[in-house]
């Protein structure tokens, strides 16, 4: 089973209790699918999808972006810098 590394920050890090998680992926899985997997495992991570963004290898991507085994994925809850 292929896996992908997902970094967790802010709300996701605290809810899961870890700053990193490995999520199994199948062919054609998108970054959004990773979020759905997470919610299944950790129901408290549920979050309004339209307020969530995704980053792959340090860049924001669309939620339809397919994931690859060596990607570094970040689930980005609304940011609040400044």
């Amino acid at each position, binding site marked *: 089973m292929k896996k992908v590394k997902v*970094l967790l*920050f*802010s*709300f996701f*890090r*605290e809810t899961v209790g870890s700053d990193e998680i490995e999520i199994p992926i199948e062919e054609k899985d998108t970054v959004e699918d990773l979020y759905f997997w997470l919610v299944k495992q950790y129901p408290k991570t549920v979050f309004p999808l*339209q*307020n969530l*963004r995704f*980053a792959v290898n*340090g*860049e*924001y991507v*669309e939620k*339809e972006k397919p994931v690859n085994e060596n990607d*570094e994925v*970040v689930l*980005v*809850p*609304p*940011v*609040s*810098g*400044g």
Partner: protein
Amino acid sequence: MIELTKNTIAVDKVREAVADPSCGAVVLFEGQVRNHHNGQSVLALEYEVYPKMVLTVIESICEKAKEKWPLGKVAVVHRYGRLEIGEVAVVVAVSSAHRQEAFEAASYVMEQIKHEAPIWKKEFYQDQTSDWVFCSHQKKEKELAGALLAGGHSRRFGSNKAFALKGDEPFYQIGLNLLKKSCSEIVISSNEPKLFEKDGLLVVEDRLKEKGPLGGVYTLLKTVTPSWLLVLACDMPQLTEKSVNLLLKQERAGKKAICFKDEKKLYPFPGLFHKSLEKMILNCISMGELRVSNMIDSIPEHEKKILSVEALDDFKTSELSNINTRKEYVKL
């Protein structure tokens, strides 16, 4: 200078970093930790950042600012970790020849950091609770930029169509007025930027010379920050707000382009274009395809929404017609 730090920000150093002998203005913004938020008493803050991405995001925001305004230097320093009330959390410094650009650019850089940089803020309250702050900013019409294509040669018309008058208003102004109603950011595509300079508008020249409207759309998508771009052509003075709103009302999720068609043809403008079309447009251009409508044709059906004007009540197709010749102009 673009930095993250765990320690107190040396504000003087940030100011020094933008010093430039050609600049007469320096705007320095300091964001400091406030003791209240939404009616709650705040004791302290904690910022968490995604180190790998945050600096590149802020760098690209600063680069964008330099494209939008003639600036000297831009510097940003942001704190992370725990901060107490009154501490400086972020400093933005901008220098430019004249003050207006520096004020506008500093404000822009700060806004963009708030919306784009992967930084998360946790507030600790007096009642021992704490919470992540989720700014309610994303996905509003902030996600919409507006653009006016005014780069044509007006060969058949004989003079620059953008400045032809309808009533006492130039064509381009009619387009701008429509864009201003819904777009957070407005750009004009023209190969004669000087013509628009007096109005303090953001004008971009085509990155790809002589590549027609498609080259114009490409440049515009490259220029704007929001993910959606509403494009109007300057030679459509009969277009109304109602029709533009019709496009804006369509569900955009999963789509890349939204525009009108009638039984004869597709009208790329007014049209909504998603930023992700950049690559596809570049491909079209490299294959010698310069027509926007053909580019839209090649987008898969499920990724576009084409509104058929015949199906719309009380829609005048004349709204979509371009004024190309003097003859069409006098008929207006």
